[in-house]
């Protein structure tokens, strides 16, 4: 029953987010601040993880190809497919649910605990719009992060293959080019765009409606991470079923 109540409250929250817009001059500054916090601030960890996981995918693929009949370019092909289809959009989104999601929940939750949200409401500010809308807009740049993650994942795979002696550069590049379906990139970006909305709104929901003190802020962050991840996985399945079958 509590799940149904939360789903209902989540959609009512979304209605509140898109009503009574904050003054543009204020909103603009908030959006830039959120881009800095949520997008720019996440680049380091995304780049690091993408590069090395791309490398690991290439090595794992190469090590599992024992049959001499399987062409060597398969390493590049498998790396490309893994990185573009799943690793960059989904795996990075799960990481972002932890990094960005817990930041959003704890910052909004702390504002709730310290009555800063009440202060906004008393002033006549639509706190939902003021706090959450800029995060949604900022995270709409999330597909750019995923583009970089795709690039670095493939670059990591290429470097691991070459310098690890698992494949030649020519084989790897051939694998990257073979059977390339541009729609797979579209599919990845459709997923990413939906995930960006989930990343902005579910952690905000748990922060905004939390009750209690500092301990509850921590609990809300954990709950937000769990539910953001669950929803990302479910939506991932749904979009894959809809777009790729």
């Amino acid at each position, binding site marked *: 029953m509590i799940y149904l109540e939360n789903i209902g409250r989540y959609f009512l929250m979304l209605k509140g987010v898109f009503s009574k817009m904050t003054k543009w001059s*204020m909103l603009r500054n908030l959006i830039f601040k959120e881009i800095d916090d949520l997008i720019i601030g996440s680049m380091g960890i995304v780049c690091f993880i993408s590069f090395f996981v791309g490398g690991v995918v290439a090595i794992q693929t190469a090590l599992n190809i024992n049959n001499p009949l399987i062409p060597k370019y398969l390493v590049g092909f498998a790396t490309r497919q893994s990185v573009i289809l799943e690793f960059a959009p989904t795996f990075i989104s799960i990481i972002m649910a932890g990094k960005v999601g817990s930041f959003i929940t704890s910052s909004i939750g702390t504002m709730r605990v*310290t*009555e*800063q949200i*009440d202060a906004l*409401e*008393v002033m*006549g*500010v*639509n706190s939902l719009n003021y706090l959450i809308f800029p995060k949604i807009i900022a995270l709409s740049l999330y597909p750019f992060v995923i583009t970089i993650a795709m690039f670095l994942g493939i670059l990591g795979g290429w470097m691991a293959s070459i310098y690890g002696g698992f494949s030649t550069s020519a084989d790897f590049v051939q694998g990257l080019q073979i059977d390339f379906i541009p729609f797979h990139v579209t599919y990845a970006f459709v997923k990413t765009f939906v995930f960006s909305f989930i990343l902005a709104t579910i952690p905000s929901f748990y922060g905004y409606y939390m009750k209690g003190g500092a301990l509850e802020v921590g609990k809300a962050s954990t709950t937000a991470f769990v539910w953001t991840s669950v929803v990302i996985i479910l939506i991932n399945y749904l979009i894959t079923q809809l777009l790729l079958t």
Partner: protein
Amino acid sequence: MDECSYNFDKLPHHTIIIDVMIEVKNIKKSFDGVEILKGISTTFEKGKTNLVIGQSGSGKTVFLKSLLGLFTPEEGSILFDGKDYKTLSDEQKRELRTEMGMVFQGSALFDSMTVSENVMFPLRMFSNQPLSEMQDRVDFVLKRVNLIDAHHKYPAETSGGMQKRVAIARAIVMNPKYLFCDEPNSGLDPRTAIVIDNLIQEITDEYNITTVINTHDMNSVMEIGEKIVFLKDGHKAWEGTNKEIFKTDNKSVTDFVYSSDLFKKVREVYLKELED
């Protein structure tokens, strides 16, 4: 009062409005089936410092948050200047809220903003004045609450008393009709508490604001309580002035207010002086 070049006519709300007051009619509020407010009725007059007192758990904060519109009472109505809050549209409610100033118990300053930005926040949000005029107004109210050199400090870099003064400055920057304060003296030393009390009363008098204060502080009750509402177990148990509270024989009030020997003595001296 300090002189200021600020043009008050450009503010969205003017200070001189006649007979502004808050009327509370039989409000009831429950949480999880537990009735916290059990039918409270009272009025808060314009230009007066109204105090709501009572033991912890008596419903003071719920009462204040109901006045602010943060909680919606299940029954009863709250009228601001004759307008029933419940019947207002969302837009009208937001407009009304811009006429309210609130000083929260923990000050509720925005951590990521400096003192100056905190005070300027309502102006930036609701007025279309040039930045220089907003800055003039911020300088004026900060000077009014005796904060001169704190403009660029963050709330975390200021003391509890300074934070309370910043919160008061932020609450009055829009020239509100109604000022609400939740435990403005909590966590402050006695001297600073008196400074804050006096500041609130001066501001109430100067701007003719309807001020409602939730407090436990008996000094505040004696010093600035032009009207006192005593809540007990969600009921209004007594109301009167700080003069009348000395004379009342209402047991609930005397048990609460004169629980310390010091205040018992103060009361005896006061009553003796009256007889003389």
